[in-house]
C-alpha cells in the first residue's frame, strides 16, 4: 500500500532531481556560522523560502528558482543543537567525508596515513580547510544552500532566469545583516577564487541556439533510472515511474520503501532506521553527501584513443565503432543513454537511433526525441539476471555497479541454459541485495559546455549530491564495494571503469559472446578519470526541523 507523505514537510531536492524538472542551472553555497543567534536568525529567514516537495502545480507553484538548505555536523553544533540529539546522529555524518577518505577510495589505500600527508592537495581550498579545526572554526563549512534555476523563458542564449541572481543577492544581504554572524565561504575552484559552486547542464550550440542536454562532460547521457520510492509520485504517475526504477517483486515493479531515503519511515528491512531524538527533528529529513567530482576529460580521451586502436584491430571494426563500443562497454549505456542490456551491439544501436529519431536533421527535434525516450520507462526497464556473464553489458560496467538490479539475487544461475543454448534467463530474479543500497542522485555538471576548451586542467565535472537515509549503508557501501572494488561482480580488484581510482588497478574486462568467435577484450590502460575535489556530509532537515533549529527549541528529552 502506498503511504501518503507529508510533502510540505520534506525538502524538494530530496524528492525531485531539479535538472529533470527544467532547472538546468544551480549555485551551491557553503556558509560558516560564527554566532549561534545570528545563525538561527539566518536559518529562520531562509526557511520561509525553502522549496518543499509539495506537488506542482496542485499544491504549490513551481518557482523560477528553488532554495534548499542542509547542515554539516559542525554546523548543527554551532547552532547549539543539544549534545544528546547530536550524538544520536549517524556516526559517519559526525566525522565527515574527509575522515572517510580511505573508505571512499579518495586517498591512496596503498599508502599509510603518515606517508601521505598531502593526499588532498588537489581538493578545492574550501574543502582542504574544512574540518581542520574544531567545530566553530571560521573556515568550517556549516551550511549548504542550493539554488536551482530555470532557463530564461525567452531567448536562446543559455542563460538562467534573473531570479537566480536575485536569490544570490538575497543570500548575500542576509549575511550582511548578520553582523558577521554568517558568512559565505569562498575557496571554491582550483584557485579558490569562487564563493559558490556554479553548475549547469551541458549545452549544445546549434547556430544561434543553445540547448541544454542530459549529458555530462565525457559526453554520456546522465541521471537516468534514479530510484523511485513510495509516496514520491502521484498514484497515477507512479504506475509508469516505477518501471525499471523501483524494485522487482514477483512479476511487477514496486516503489522502494520510503525509509530508504527519508528518515522516520519504515525501510526495506521493515525497520524504522534509528534516528536522533526528538523524533520530529529527524523525521522527514535525510542525509546527503556533497561531492565535487572533477572529470579529467583530456586523459579520458587519450586513454580511449589508445584502447580504441587496439580494440578496432582485434575485433576488426572501424575506429568509430570501436570507440563508441568501448565507451558503451565502460558505461553500460551508449553515449545517448540507450542501455546495452536492451541494445547490445553497435549496428543495432545505429538502427535504434534512426528508429527513434535521435539523428533527426533538426537538432531540436532530435533532442526532444532523446529526452522523451530517456524520460520513458523504456530507458530504465531492463535486467542483468538474463546476462550473468556480461555478454551484453559487462559485469564491471559503470551502471551495473551503481545499481545492480536483479544481478545479485543469490538464486541466479550463471552459464548456458542447456534447454535454450543461451544464458539462463533467471526470470524469477529479485532485487535482493540491491534495494538496501540505492541512492538518490542529485546535482548537475559544472564547467564550460564547449568541449574544445576543456582539458584535465580546466574546471569541469559533476557537482554530485547523493541522498539516502543511511550514508554508511548506502553511499559509502556503493562507493567502497561497488565503485572501488569488484568482488561482487567477479571483477577481483578492478574498480569502476569510469568513476574508480585507477592508480593501481587499471583493467576493465569486456566479455565476448562465445558465439561471435571473438576473444574477450581487457582494457588495461585505465587512468583515474574522475577525482573527488572535496565535499562533506550534510543533514537535510524537514521543514519542521528547520523551524525548530531557527527557534532554538530542539529538545531531546
Amino acid at each position, binding site marked *: 500500500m502506498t503511504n501518503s507523505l507529508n510533502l510540505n514537510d520534506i525538502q524538494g531536492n530530496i524528492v525531485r532531481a531539479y535538472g529533470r524538472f527544467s532547472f538546468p542551472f544551480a549555485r551551491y553555497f557553503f556558509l560558516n556560522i560564527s554566532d549561534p543567534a545570528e545563525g538561527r536568525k539566518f536559518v529562520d529567514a531562509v526557511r520561509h523560502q525553502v522549496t518543499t516537495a509539495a506537488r506542482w502545480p496542485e499544491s504549490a507553484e513551481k518557482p523560477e528558482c528553488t532554495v534548499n538548505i542542509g547542515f554539516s555536523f559542525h554546523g548543527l553544533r554551532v547552532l547549539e543543537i543539544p549534545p544528546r540529539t547530536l550524538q544520536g546522529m549517524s556516526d559517519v555524518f559526525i566525522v565527515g567525508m574527509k575522515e572517510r577518505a580511505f573508505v571512499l577510495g579518495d586517498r591512496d589505500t596503498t599508502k*599509510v596515513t603518515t606517508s601521505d600527508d598531502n593526499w588532498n592537495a588537489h581538493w578545492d581550498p574550501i574543502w582542504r580547510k574544512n574540518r581542520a579545526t574544531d567545530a566553530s572554526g571560521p573556515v568550517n563549512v556549516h551550511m549548504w544552500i542550493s539554488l536551482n534555476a530555470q532557463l530564461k523563458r525567452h531567448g536562446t542564449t543559455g542563460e538562467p532566469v534573473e531570479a537566480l541572481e536575485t536569490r544570490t543577492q538575497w543570500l548575500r544581504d542576509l549575511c550582511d545583516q548578520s553582523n558577521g554572524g554568517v558568512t559565505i565561504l569562498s575557496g571554491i575552484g582550483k584557485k579558490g577564487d569562487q564563493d559558490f559552486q556554479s553548475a549547469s547542464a551541458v549545452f549544445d550550440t546549434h547556430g544561434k541556439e543553445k540547448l541544454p542536454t542530459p549529458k555530462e562532460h565525457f559526453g554520456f547521457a546522465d541521471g537516468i533510472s534514479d530510484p523511485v520510492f513510495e509516496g514520491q509520485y502521484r498514484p497515477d504517475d507512479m504506475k509508469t515511474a516505477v518501471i525499471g526504477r523501483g524494485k522487482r517483486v514477483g512479476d511487477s515493479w514496486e516503489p522502494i520503501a520510503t525509509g530508504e531515503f527519508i528518515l522516520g519511515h519504515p525501510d526495506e528491512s521493515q525497520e524504522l532506521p534509528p534516528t536522533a531524538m526528538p523524533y520530529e527533528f529527524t523525521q522527514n529529513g535525510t542525509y546527503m553527501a556533497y561531492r565535487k567530482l572533477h572529470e579529467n576529460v583530456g586523459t579520458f580521451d587519450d586513454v580511449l584513443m589508445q584502447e580504441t586502436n587496439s580494440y578496432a584491430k582485434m575485433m576488426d571494426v572501424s575506429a568509430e565503432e570501436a570507440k563508441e563500443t568501448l565507451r558503451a562497454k565502460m558505461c553500460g549505456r551508449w553515449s545517448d543513454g540507450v542501455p546495452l542490456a536492451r541494445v547490445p551491439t553497435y549496428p543495432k544501436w545505429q538502427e535504434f537511433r534512426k528508429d527513434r529519431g535521435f539523428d533527426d536533421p533538426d537538432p531540436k527535434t532530435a533532442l526532444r526525441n532523446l529526452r522523451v525516450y530517456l524520460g520513458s520507462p523504456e530507458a530504465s526497464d531492463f535486467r542483468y539476471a538474463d546476462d550473468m556473464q556480461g555478454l551484453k553489458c559487462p559485469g564491471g560496467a559503470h551502471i551495473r555497479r551503481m545499481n545492480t538490479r536483479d544481478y545479485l539475487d543469490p538464486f541466479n544461475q550463471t552459464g548456458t541454459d542447456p534447454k535454450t543454448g543461451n544464458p539462463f534467463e533467471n526470470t524469477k530474479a529479485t532485487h535482493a541485495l540491491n534495494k538496501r543500497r540505492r541512492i538518490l542522485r542529485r546535482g548537475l555538471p559544472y564547467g564550460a559546455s564547449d568541449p574544445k576548451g576543456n582539458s584535465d586542467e580546466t574546471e569541469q565535472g559533476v557537482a554530485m549530491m547523493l541522498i539516502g537515509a543511511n550514508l554508511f549503508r548506502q553511499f559509502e557501501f556503493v562507493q567502497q564495494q561497488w565503485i572501488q572494488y569488484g568482488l561482487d561482480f567477479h571483477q577481483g580488484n578492478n574498480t569502476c571503469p569510469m568513476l574508480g581510482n585507477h592508480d593501481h588497478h587499471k583493467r576493465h574486462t569486456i566479455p565476448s559472446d562465445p558465439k561471435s568467435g571473438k576473444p574477450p577484450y581487457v582494457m588495461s590502460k585505465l587512468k583515474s578519470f574522475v577525482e573527488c575535489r572535496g565535499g562533506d556530509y550534510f543533514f537535510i532537515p524537514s521543514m519542521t526541523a528547520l523551524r525548530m533549529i531557527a527557534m532554538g527549541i530542539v529538545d531531546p528529552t
Partner: protein
Amino acid sequence: MPDLDSGHIFLTTLAPIRDSGKGRLEHTSFTQNVRIALAKMPTAMQSPATQATGNNSPFARNKRNHLARMFVLNDVVYNGRIGQNALAAIVSKQDPTDPQPVDRLNTSYVVFCADIDAIAEDGAPLPIDLDEAEQKNVRMAYARELWNTMEDELREVYVNCVGFDGVETADDFATYLEKCHVKTTMPFHDYYLSLPKFNVLPLNRLLIAVAIPAAIAIIALLLRIFGVLDLPGLGWSTFWTFVCGVILSGLVAVWAVQYTLKNGEKPLGPGEYDDLPSVLKALYMQQKFSDFVVDHQGSSAKDLHAAFGKFLSEHKPKDREGPTQGPGLISSAVPASKS
C-alpha cells in the same frame, strides 16, 4: 559434532587461564598477560600498514592453516533474566523479584581456532574421511608444526595457562593442546569449484516410515473406540494392534532421529585443489595469467603459442611448491616477510 569436513579440520581449543596475579608484587594478571602477548603478535601482511612493518603473522610460517584465530574468552555473555509468561509465573508461584542464578565461567580461556588441511604431513592429499584416532593424529601433527615454527609466540601466550608448566617439546605441546581440544564445527572457508555430493536427508521416506505404524495405531484405536474388537479380515485384536503400532512408530522415530544425526555428521569430501598450497598457487596463477592475457591481447597465434610455452615453463602451474604466493600475503606482488 564432527570437526572434519571437506578434507579440513576445524580445530577449536580452549586453554584455561590461571586465575590470579603472577606474584605478590605483580599488578598484571595472567589474563592481561595473554592479551598483551596477543596484541603484540603480528597479523598477516594484508594492509599497507602491516606490510610496512615487514613482520608477517607467525601462522604464515606453516602451510597448513587457512585461517587462525586466538582470543581471550573472559566469560559467557549474560543475557538477562529468563523470561516467563506472567500467568504461568503466578500459577507456579514464582516471584519475578527473586534473583535467578547467573551462569559464569570458572576462569577465562585462551580460545584458539584454526581451519587446517586435515593432513599429518605437508604435501599429503586431503582425506575424504578420518576416524577419531586419525583426526587426533592430524591435530597432534599440526600442533607439533606450530611448535616447530612459532615456539616463542606460543610460549608467551600459553605460559599464562593452567597445565602448561613442563611443556618443553613439540610433543609436549601437542599433548597439551589435545587436552584443550573441544569438538565443534565452525568452518570459515570453502573453495569448492563445483559443489560436492551432499548427504541429502531422505526426509519424506523417514516421515513415511514413522507415519505408517502411527497411522495403523490410530486406525486400530478408532476401531476400538467404535467397538470393533478385531481387525476385519486379519482377526488381530485392535487393542494389541494399537499398542504394537505405537511402540513400532516410537522405535522407528528414535531410529530416524539417530539416522538424521549420523547423516549430519558425515563429512563432505574435499573440493578439488582445496589444500592450502594449491589455494596459494591458484592465487599466484590467477594474477600471472591475467597479466599474460593483457600482455598478449591481439598477438598472432604463433607468437601466442611461443609466449604461452614460456609462461608455462616459468610459472609451472602444476607445481604447488613454487613459484607461488607466500602465506599471509595479500598478493603475489607483495615481497615476502622478514619473519
